[in-house]
């Protein structure tokens, strides 16, 4: 129950924080404009594609690229959203209030993570609503879109966990945001050198987030990719929990 109380408190704080609204409004406006551009280009090329038997459809040319745009925005939006979650509490002096309320560190972390997931789910759902609004008029590939949405959801969840861990280690929200941004980008492109050298396998490629998101965006769901996200989320949340527990012990 204490975890839900923390989640509710954090959700309320997210809802009234101007930054969350500004981020939501700006990014959704940007995505809406991109959706219109993608849709226009899709409609313009419809006659040429009609000649191809297995040509790309609405999902490949509009819905998935739109989610790709969301993925790019997430690298900036998620750190901005997560930066104050614990570091802000530390600065306000409100973190000891949660400790004094007998809430274990794991529940503080999970409660705050749940609230973040709520906001990110809403963000993803509003983006998905754009292509879904045209589902009745287009040949939407539901399976492929579901896989891509799962990939995006996992990516957002992983970035949120990473941001939360950075916030738990920092006293300044700005430092937490910068650390989460750099770590997220590094994790995405850690295999860039290997890719340029034509190496497709190995540990360096396994480590890269892009290697696990891109198959999902193409509609390929594999348990290895799901496991990678579960490991990253679990590790980040465990680190945040451990750091909070230590802080409680040391004061």
């Amino acid at each position, binding site marked *: 129950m*204490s975890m839900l109380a923390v989640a*509710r*408190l954090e959700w*309320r*704080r997210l809802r*009234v924080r101007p930054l969350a609204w500004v981020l939501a409004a700006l990014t959704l406006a940007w995505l809406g404009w991109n959706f219109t551009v993608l849709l226009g280009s899709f409609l313009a090329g419809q006659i040429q594609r009609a000649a191809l038997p297995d040509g790309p459809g609405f999902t490949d040319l509009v819905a998935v690229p739109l989610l790709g745009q969301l993925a790019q925005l997430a690298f900036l939006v998620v750190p901005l959203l997560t930066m104050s979650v614990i570091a802000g509490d530390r600065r306000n*002096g409100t973190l000891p*209030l949660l400790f*004094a*309320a007998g809430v274990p560190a794991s529940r503080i972390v999970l409660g705050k993570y749940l609230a973040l997931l709520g906001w990110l789910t809403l963000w993803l759902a509003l983006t998905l609503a754009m292509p879904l609004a045209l589902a009745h008029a287009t040949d939407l590939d539901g399976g492929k879109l579901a896989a891509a949405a799962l990939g995006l959801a996992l990516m957002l969840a992983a970035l949120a966990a990473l941001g939360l861990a950075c916030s738990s280690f920092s006293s300044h929200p700005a430092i937490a945001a910068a650390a989460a941004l750099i770590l997220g980008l590094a994790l995405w492109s850690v295999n860039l050198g290997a890719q340029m050298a034509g190496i497709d396998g190995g540990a360096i490629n396994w480590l890269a987030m892009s290697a696990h998101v891109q198959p999902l965006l193409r509609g390929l769901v594999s348990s290895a990719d799901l496991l990678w996200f579960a490991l990253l989320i679990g590790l980040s949340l465990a680190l945040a929990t451990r750091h909070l527990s230590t802080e409680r012990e040391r004061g």
Partner: protein
Amino acid sequence: MTTIIPADPPLALQLDHVARRRAGRVAVRDLSLSLLRGQVLGLLGVNGAGKSTTLSMIAGALRPDTGAIKLNGEDFLERPELARTGIGWLPERAPLWPELNVIEHLDAHARLRGLRGAALHAARNAIVERLELQPLARRLAGVLSQGQRQRLGLACALVHRPTLLVLDEPANALDPVQMAALRSLIREQAAAGTAVILSTHVLSEVTAVCDRVAILHEGALQHEGMVEAGDHAALERRFFEIAMTPRPAQAA
């Protein structure tokens, strides 16, 4: 004829040989204290004497390195959930979430302390009425004056009706009228059976409202006793004796 001797009120708080290091130095050393329900204990000491560390440990925000803290006879270091329902804490400078309003603060604190539904609403409305927070109800904490923040912090500490109230310099930033109201509230809580422990720099605060006094110096308990009416001069003398006397290690 049989004489019925009234039993002492039950023990609300007991500290046994509590010690704590902070930032590489001993903040509290071998501290043993006890407090009965309905009693008000004043904790005095100069800056850095260990008052806030002691209160943070009693409130459950900080774990002692050694020793035991018992709330209503039960060790709450082993059962941290006891602190959740049994203790109300007002830390120094009343930390608040600036983006939440007064009502949201009280609801959040009540929920964190285990209240739900109708019980939560009743408790919140009662404390809003008692501390006359109605005019501030929808105001964001970030725009409250220091005195208003202190009142809100006090309301948050009391919303779940704790059996032990821990107040760290509660009179900070309060005007004389608000200080008188605070004294009256502390007495009212004690009369209802709540044990109250408050730290302060103001000696007159102790003689006005406390039943007992403890003086900490360099992390150690130097004096503990009852507060007698009109005892202000004696208490002041004792306080300065302790505060001005360097400990042997310091003198060397």
